[in-house]
Structure formats: C-alpha cells, structure tokens
C-alpha cells in the first residue's frame, strides 16, 4: 500500500521536514490580491496535507492534517469531518469552531445516503438564499454561519462521509477552492480507507497472533508429548511435556539429539523407520524405549506425520509421543493372569468346562478331554447337552434355566451321568460356579469322574456284607456250642446266653445297615426293646436325635437287653401294669444322660448279690462308654442312669 502511494499515484517524493518550501511570510499575503498567490497557497496546503497524511500514524493524525488543510486551504474559520457509522448514520468525528448545540442539531444530517456513488459536492454561498426549512436556516444562522460547503468523502467510489467548510459571511466559492476541496476530500478519503485497512490488517495480525498463541499454549500444555523436527529429523520444537521427559530447556531444543536417549537395542529399528519417513515423507507409527531425565527407560509410542509449507515444501515431521509403559505393563499383567488362570484350569484334577449362559462350550481343560473322550476342537463351540445322556437332557436344560435365573455356586451332587464320545455313561460329580463377566454370564463346571469312587463304595459294601455274614456265622457257631453245652442241663442259663447273643447280633445288623459308621440311639432302643404289642405300649422311648459310635451302639444294646430281660423277669414287665420309660437328654454341658425308669412293677429290693447283668451294666458299660452308670433300686421301680460324653461330631455319641 505504501508502495502504491509512492509510485502508483505519481505523487511527489516525500520531502524532508527541513526542506519544506513554504514559510509563514508567504501565508500572510492578503486575500483576493493575486489569484496566482492563492493558487500557490492552495498547492502548498495540499502539499503539506499529502506529506502529513503520508506520515500519519493513525486516523486521528489524518483527520487533524485534513482539518488544517481545509481551514487554511479554503480559508474558512470553521470546519468539520463526518463519517457514516456502522448503522449508516452520519456522525461528527472531528470539528473546529462548532458549538455542541450545532453538532447536536446536525448530527446524522446528510444530503447523501451511505454508499452512494461519487456524488458531486454542494456549495452554499448564502444560507438565506436556499429553500432549506426555517429551522435549518435558524440553526445555521444562530451558529454565525452564512456559507457552507458539503464535500463528499469516498472510498472506492462510494460515499463514506463528508467534510464541511463554514464561512461566517456569504461566500463565493471559486473554481480553485472547489477543486482544492475535492482534492482534499479525495486525499482524506484515501487516507481513511488506508487507515481502516491498516486497522483491519492489524486486527487480523492480532487475531492470528492470538490464535497462534492459543495453539502454542495448547501444544505446550497438552497432556501428550508433541515435537516438531526439520527435514533431517533434528528437533525444532518440543512441548513442555516432551521437554520435561528429557529435561531439555526450551533454549537447548535445537542442540538436543533425541537419538541418544533410545534403548540401544531399539535404535536400528527406530532410526530406520524415521529415515524412511523423512525420505518418503510419510506418516509412521513406531514404538520404542527411551531414557527419560531420571534415567528410566519408558515405552513411547510415536505417531508422526510429514509437514509441508503452504507452497508444498517438505519441512520435516510433527509427531506425538505417548507413554504406554503402564498400559503395556497392565496388558502384560492381564495376559499373565489369563495365562495363570488357564494353567490352573488346565492343571485342575477335575474336568473343567466353561460355557456361556446358553450352554455353549467356550473352554475345556485336558481332564475334560480325557473324561469325555473328545478332543478340544470337538468340544469348543458345541452345546453342553452333547455331554449329557439323552434321558437327562431335558433336566439339564431345566436346571440351566433355573441356574441362569439365579446364578450361584452349587454342587449338583453325585447323581449325574456324563456321556462320553464312545457312548459310555460315566458317573460324575458336578459343581458349577457362575462368573459375571463383561461378556455376560459364564458358567464354570468342575466335573469329577467318580466311577472309581462308586466302585470303591460298592466294594466296601460287599466287604461289609461279607464281614457281617462271617460275624453272624461266628455268633451262630458260638451259640451252637452253648446250645450243646446247656441243652439238657440248664435251660435258663442257655436262654440268658442266647438272649445276649441275639442282642449282639441285633446291634450288628443295625450297624451293618449304616455301613458301620454310626447308629441312631432311637433305632438302637427300638430294636433292643422289641416285644409283642401289648407290652410295647407299656414302654416309652424318647429323646433328641443322637448318633452312636459302633462301640457305644453295641454296649447300649447289651445294656438295654439286660435291663429289659430283668424287667420281664422281676421288674415292671413281670406284672400286667408296670411301665418303663427310657428317656435321654442333652444336658448342654457336654454330656448325654440316659435314664431307664421302671414304675408300677412289684416292689423292688436291692439284690443281695450282683449278677452278671448288673456287672455288665455298671462296669463294662461305664468302661465302654467312657461314662458312669448308676443303678438305683428304688422300691417303686428300678432306675438306671447312664451319663456319657456328648460331642458335636464324632465320639461315642454326637448330635444327630
């Protein structure tokens, strides 16, 4: 724009301030004496204006210069400059010798519309001679003005405002004056245009700089490392995070060689990739380890792109580095944990199957392959139903639905059959565990082949039956010896002996039925005190559920046999009215108390001599039960109190 002013318009070279040709004595030449003098004066003013406008630093400078030129050049005492504002209203922006009231009245007053095409100026020699309304004339006259000139200011051919020259007396505007006015207006218009363009340019520059600042700030504060390199890959710019990573000060960036921070093992690969990107001018992604300021190697993932100038010249690369050390570690931890999980599952002694909520097999371990006779690929993706015998499939589906509705760990027990590939059905024990994963419900089933256990159980039962048979046979042999011995001589002794033998056999039977683990005290009592119905109703058996060890069961059976036999012979059962209660209770102090109480029998007297029966009771039983046995020969009926340890689990007696 400056070049245009100097050359395009063909205006004269800017003179030095010292060589200004005009001096004050020339200006003092009186008016109307010499038109040539006037012309020189006008030219001088024009020259000064041009010079001042050229030097103007601001719109105000330009307006000031124009005002001086108008007042001096047109030899008027007062003047003003008005411009259209954004709303197209003509506003005073500079004035000389005008009252506030005058400006107020004529603010907005204009003979032209904003943007009109280059209208001609208007010169009013005498306001009284116009057709203007009276209020206009009055306002002008009261300001002491008689003549005025309206000179349009234009920019690119359009009206942007005007300047006014005022004379206190009626005035004849000469052709020279008119020409000078238009020239001043043209210069001023041009200056305003230039000032406005400059303002706009500066605003743009400011905006650009602000926006650059913002971007620089953004890059600087970005939570990733950002860098820029030249065509050779040398650092041009590193953002704060990147500088802090390497502890490089902003001033040292250009001297910093990032290549020295690479892990030596990574160097060939990264350098090759970078050189490739620089030569082929293409985007790359490369992961490598770099030593940070603390000496620690961190894994950085670099994403870089080539950058070009507006004219397409290759400038280098711009890139971001993302520290993925933690992410990689987390991924590795996850992989390791998955691997551990896989190994644990694989090493599990049970067959393990993981399925989704719909029963589709997702994973199996080696034992599951072995158990079902399928290979892994034959199982994965198949339905779990293929492993269930057809008769059970409906149940399997039902229980799956129920499980889905309420997933919780359950043991499905030992009553299951698994269907092998070869069609064989294997007894299995199944436990299932639900796992809620991000992919939905997963079910892990642990399946143990229990055919061996079942076989062992069957074997054990067989052995027990065989043992029982032998024991019974032995008892029978003993019995046959006794039978022979007492056959002709002592029937009472034989029967007593047989009774005891039978009681022992009864207890054996009971224990055989419970696999020789334990026997219920209720059952022991009921089996020992079996008799005909009419006597049965005279015996009461009651107490909490108690389990007896085999030894305790045998002892108590023998004891009850003795008490029962005694009651039949001498006690409550020897008449028609006597009764027996056999009750026991948990004293909640670790003991079980059993009480045999006879009532309404013949009057009892303590025996003079203790027989085998009471010996068996008081001594053997106490020893066997690790307890105490007390016989009370109350006249109204015999009482036998047995106290023995009671435990929660195991022992001679425990809670059933």
């Amino acid at each position: 724009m400056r070049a245009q002013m100097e050359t395009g318009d063909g205006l004269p070279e800017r003179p030095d301030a010292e060589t200004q040709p005009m001096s004050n004595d020339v200006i003092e030449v009186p008016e109307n004496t010499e038109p040539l003098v006037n012309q020189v004066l006008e030219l001088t003013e024009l020259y000064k204006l041009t010079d001042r406008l050229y030097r103007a630093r601001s719109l105000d400078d330009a307006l000031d210069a124009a005002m001086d030129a108008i007042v001096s050049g047109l030899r008027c005492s007062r003047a003003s400059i008005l411009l259209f504002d954004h709303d197209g209203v003509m506003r005073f922006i500079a004035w000389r010798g005008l009252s506030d009231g005058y400006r107020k009245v004529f603010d907005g007053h204009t003979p032209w519309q904003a943007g009109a095409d280059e209208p001609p100026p208007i010169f009013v020699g005498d306001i009284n001679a116009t057709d203007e309304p009276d209020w206009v004339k009055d306002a002008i006259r009261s300001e002491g003005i008689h003549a005025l000139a309206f000179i349009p200011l234009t920019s690119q051919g359009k009206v942007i405002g005007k300047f006014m020259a005022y004379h206190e007396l009626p005035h004849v505007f000469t052709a020279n004056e008119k020409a000078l006015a238009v020239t001043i207006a043209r210069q001023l218009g041009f200056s305003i245009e230039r000032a406005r363009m400059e303002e706009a340019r500066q605003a743009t520059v400011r905006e650009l700089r602000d926006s650059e600042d913002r971007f620089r700030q953004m890059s600087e504060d970005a939570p990733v490392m950002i860098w820029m390199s030249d065509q050779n890959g040398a650092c041009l710019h590193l953002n704060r995070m990147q500088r802090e990573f390497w502890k490089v000060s902003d001033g040292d960036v250009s001297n910093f060689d990032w290549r020295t921070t690479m892990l030596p093992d990574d160097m060939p690969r990264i350098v090759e990739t970078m050189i490739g990107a620089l030569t082929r001018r293409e985007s790359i992604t490369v992961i490598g380890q770099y030593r940070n300021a603390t000496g620690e190697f961190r894994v950085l993932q670099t994403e870089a792109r080539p950058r070009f100038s507006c004219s397409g010249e290759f400038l280098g690369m711009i890139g971001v580095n993302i520290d993925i050390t933690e992410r990689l570690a987390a991924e590795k931890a996850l992989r390791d944990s998955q691997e551990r999980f896989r190994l644990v599952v694989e090493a599990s002694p049970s067959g393990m199957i993981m399925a989704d909520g719909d029963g589709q097999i997702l994973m199996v371990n080696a034992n599951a392959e072995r158990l079902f006779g399928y290979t892994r690929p034959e199982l994965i993706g198949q339905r779990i139903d293929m492993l269930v015998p057809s008769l059970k499939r409906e149940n399997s589906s039902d229980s799956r639905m129920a499980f889905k509705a309420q997933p919780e760990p359950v043991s499905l027990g030992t009553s299951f059959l698994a269907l092998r590939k070869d069609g064989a059905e294997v007894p299995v024990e199944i436990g299932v565990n639900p796992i809620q994963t991000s992919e939905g419900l997963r079910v892990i089933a642990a399946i143990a082949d229990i055919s061996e256990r079942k076989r062992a159980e069957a074997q054990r039962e067989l052995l027990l039956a065989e043992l029982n048979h032998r024991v019974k046979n032995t008892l029978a042999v003993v019995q046959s010896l006794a039978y022979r011995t007492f056959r002709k001589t002592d029937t009472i002794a034989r029967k007593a002996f047989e009774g005891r033998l039978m009681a022992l056999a009864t207890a054996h039977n009971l224990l055989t039925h419970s696999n020789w683990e334990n026997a219920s005290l209720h059952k022991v009592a009921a089996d020992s005190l079996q008799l005909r119905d009419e006597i049965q109703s005279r015996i009461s058996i009651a107490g909490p559920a108690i389990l007896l060890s085999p030894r305790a069961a045998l002892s108590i059976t023998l004891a009850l046999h003795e008490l029962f036999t005694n009651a039949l012979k001498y006690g409550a059962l020897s008449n028609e009215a006597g009764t027996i209660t056999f009750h026991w209770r948990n004293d909640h102090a670790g003991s079980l108390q059993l009480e045999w109480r006879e009532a309404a029998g013949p009057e009892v007297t303590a025996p003079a001599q203790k027989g085998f029966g009471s010996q068996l009771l008081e001594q053997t039983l106490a020893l066997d039960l690790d307890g105490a046995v007390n016989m009370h020969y109350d006249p109204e009926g015999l009482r036998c109190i047995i106290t023995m340890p009671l435990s929660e689990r195991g022992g001679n007696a425990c809670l059933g």
Partner: protein
Amino acid sequence: MPWLKGKRVFVVEDEALISVMVTDMLTDIGITVIGPAATIAAGMRMAESEDMDAAILDVNVRGERIDPVAEALIKRGIPVLFATGYGEVTLASGHVAPVIDKPYTQEKLVRGLAMALGGPQQLKRSAN
C-alpha cells in the same frame, strides 16, 4: 407246636457245629431231620430225591449260592425257609420265601418254619 411233630425237614448248612445245633433244635420238638447237607452238590442230590415236608437252607454254602437247590425245591412244591447272615434273599425266579437271620434261637427257627409251612394261622400259634 404239636402240629410240627413228625414233619420231615431237610437242612442244608455248611458249618458243622451249626448243623448239629439245628438238628438238636428240630429233633427236640420231634421233627425228623433230612441231611443235613454240607455242599450244594449234596444239597441238589437230596433236594431232588429225598422225601420231605420243608427245607431250611443256608444261603451261602462254602462260597456258593443256595439258589439252584432252592429253585429245585420250590419246583417240587416244598416250602423253603432261608437262614442267612446276609439279611436279604432274592431268587432269580422271583419266588419269595421267609427268611430268618443268623444267629437264631430255637423259638425263632420254629416260628420261621411254621411260617414257611403254614401261614399266619400257624405263625400266630407258633409265636405263642
């Protein structure tokens, strides 16, 4: 149990002492004992040839099941009473016979025999 007197009862029992006792128990109440046989082979032979009213059979005879002897007797319509230490007896043919548990008293034996021979009437009488 006078009605049992004079009955001919066949006994199979491999344990000598027990067979002696059974013989004693039965003889004491006037029953004539056939046998006793101590093996399945002997048992089979006698079961097919001897004249008898009933049989008392040990279930396990020297490791062999009594079933063939029992089936042969049942075929002849002879009532059978099993004596066993096992507790339960089921024959392949599905026939059910009364069972007494070893060891047994004379009373129990006679009651069982009465049940095999007669039914509830005799049973009740024998129980008394």
